[in-house]
């Protein structure tokens, strides 16, 4: 906050101080309430287009040029839909759940820095806040499933809670590695630590052995936490119809979609902040131009992560519920714990090449051991006779 204030103060030196103060408050808020929902709308369109291309078809192209107005049309249509509440539903909880699911998604953006100093609140416990708030969606999902009084919804809600809570553990552990390396929980400082080096790139945590492992763990955990494919078991269209949102229609349904996308994007934003250097990149730095370049870098990285999510969604089948749990507890969690030890090695082994060798070796050995121990899904060689 202080830095936005300083930036504005320096840039617009002639205007009264109180205007600068108000602007410094309003800009981050405008960002969170304006930019991210706009990105959400754009993402729905991009997702449908990209999925279409993956599936040998065009995707929406009728509304506006290349279908750019499709999100608007979707929003209008869904607003005009009848809002149906089941007769036996717990009406208050049924109403509250879709609201509650959007809020945590938006709250995470409070601590995601988009440019030097451009963070709504530079909390000292920023990472902890982001991860804790992200998990709150489990409560909303369970409220939705429970209040609907529908067995499919209930099954979906039970799956949602089990999944979100389980995947929170390896995700946080993967985050712990970064916190240890950076020595702080503040997201802004974590990003600053990843600056410097060659072209502002070489110090990103993803270019460290433990950082790469943490990045992969965090992406998988983030997908599972925001219930995206291939971890979309809580909705599981082909099994549970719509899971927890089976009994929702109209704008409440849209809010569920929005909450899910915002949570997914928020996880992508946190991933970018923790591992991909946040706004760091060639040309980003203090000052107006540097800030704009930094912002460009941040949103490019965010878009890249969103595209990765879409790509995964278009190409992977869904896991089964017991395999999902097994994957979290038997593979991801041990690997995350091993990764924490790897950060310790990285920190204390003094000649850098030695640290590289030891951490990489340690992680590769454990990766092989864990794959060997959990080799249930390896292809059985099947013989087929011909008669």
């Amino acid at each position, binding site marked *: 906050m202080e830095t936005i204030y300083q930036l504005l103060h320096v840039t617009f030196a002639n205007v009264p101080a109180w205007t600068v103060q108000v602007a410094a408050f309003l800009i981050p808020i405008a960002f969170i309430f304006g930019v991210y929902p706009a990105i959400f709308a754009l993402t729905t369109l991009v997702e449908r287009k990209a999925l279409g291309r*993956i599936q040998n078809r065009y995707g929406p192209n009728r509304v506006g040029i290349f279908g750019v107005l499709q999100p608007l049309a979707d929003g209008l249509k869904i607003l005009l839909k009848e809002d149906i509440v089941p007769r036996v539903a717990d009406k208050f909880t049924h109403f509250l759940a879709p609201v509650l699911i959007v809020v945590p998604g938006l709250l995470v953006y409070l601590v995601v820095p988009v440019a030097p100093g451009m963070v709504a609140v530079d909390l000292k416990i920023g990472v902890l806040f982001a991860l804790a708030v992200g998990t709150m969606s489990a409560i909303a999902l369970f409220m939705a499933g429970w209040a609907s009084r529908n067995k499919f919804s209930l099954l979906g809600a039970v799956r949602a809670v089990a999944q979100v809570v389980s995947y929170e553990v390896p995700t946080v552990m993967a985050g712990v590695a970064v916190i240890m390396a950076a020595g702080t929980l503040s997201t802004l400082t974590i990003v600053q630590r990843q600056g410097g080096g060659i072209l502002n790139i070489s110090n990103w945590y993803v270019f460290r052995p433990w950082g790469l492992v943490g990045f992969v763990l965090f992406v998988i955990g983030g997908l599972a936490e925001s219930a995206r494919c291939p971890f979309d078991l809580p909705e599981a269209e082909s099994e549970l119809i719509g899971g927890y949102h089976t009994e929702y229609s109209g704008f409440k349904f849209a809010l569920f979609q929005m909450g899910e996308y915002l949570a997914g994007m928020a996880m992508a934003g946190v991933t970018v902040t923790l591992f991909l250097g946040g706004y760091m990149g060639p040309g980003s730095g203090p000052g107006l131009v540097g800030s704009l370049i930094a912002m460009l870098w941040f949103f490019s990285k965010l878009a890249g992560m969103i595209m990765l999510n879409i790509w995964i969604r278009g190409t992977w*089948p869904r896991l089964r519920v017991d395999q999902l749990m097994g994957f979290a507890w038997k593979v991801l969690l041990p690997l995350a714990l091993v990764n924490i030890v790897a950060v310790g090695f990285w920190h204390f082994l003094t000649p850098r090449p030695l640290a590289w060798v030891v951490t990489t070796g340690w992680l590769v050995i454990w990766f092989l051991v864990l794959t060997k121990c959990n080799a249930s899904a390896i292809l059985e060689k*099947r013989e087929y006779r011909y008669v």
Partner: protein
Amino acid sequence: MIAAPSTIPAGGAITTQLLEISIGPQHPSTHGVFRMDVVLDGEVVRALKPVVGYLHRNHEQLAEKMSWLGSMPYTDRLDYFNSMSNNWAYALAVEKLAGIKVPERAEYIRVIMAELSRLQNHASAIGFLLQDCGAWGTPLLYAFKEREKILDFFETVSGSRMMCNYFRFGGVRVDLNDEMLAMARKIVAEFPKFLDEFEKLMTTNEVVLARCQRVGILPKELAIAGSISGPVARASGVEYDIRKVDKYGVYGQLEFGVPVGAVGDVYDRYYIRVLEMRESVKILQQVLRDIPAGPVQAVEVKLRGFKIPAGDGYGRVEGAKGELGFYLVSEGGPKPYRYHIRPPSFINLTVLEDMCVGHKVADAIIILGSIDIVLGEVDR
């Protein structure tokens, strides 16, 4: 101290209730208006009862009130993915009953049509199976791209994409000209490329393997006892293919293998279909190479004046889903006295509970998908 609720006995395990869910008749993955009454213990299926009849259309009774040829278009609507095979089974039964001989060119054309039906049916069956696994339509649409080409061919030949009504007693309705044959050859030449691509993407995908292997095992004994037929039976190791057993049409002269699995799980049922498609391509290559010239229709069968001597006959073909049979009883009149269908989808569905019990609810969905049912045929 808070007293424990009555459902939790002190110091004992928590008693849980079974949950009864009706999956269907409106459900995205029941492949039509099919219902499964499932009793769940958490996520595990404890009992499953298939409920059929939502699409009952009085098919058999209608056919008994209609001329012999009049019910040919109705057979299209049985398994609407394979109208050509359905036509063939009915024509075969009537020809057996009336003693009609089919010209050789017509026999070759029939094989072309039946095998192309099998290709598009199996392609979409594995597409739907992976859709049920949660693959968001990508494999299904890859399969549908190939299916479109075959349906275009059917439309060129018979005038309709799915409701072909192409077979006649003693032959087929129209001859194939050179352009149509070239079209068929092109489809057959391109099909292996699709299969290779599809297999590369899906067959060794770890999630597919984890989801499909060792799930929904149908033992060989049960498959025989339940009179299961088609790819489902062959995946369980039953060496039974009516194309080999009866050698109807010109299948006796063709060289092809019948793939047989060993385990009988969902993965085997998936892969048997892939292998069968490869064999169908081989059959089509032979037939399209050797097709002779000549007439395609032995006798002109009139719609109303056609009568069949009294007696009964059973005609069956190896449809894409299994043994499709028509049992016909004639009193010598212009319409059948009794008209009965042996639908493979319906009979394969009878072992659904045996395959599903003990598995998760998500498995029940893919087991149903691996049987490959079409409700038009199940309910008739």
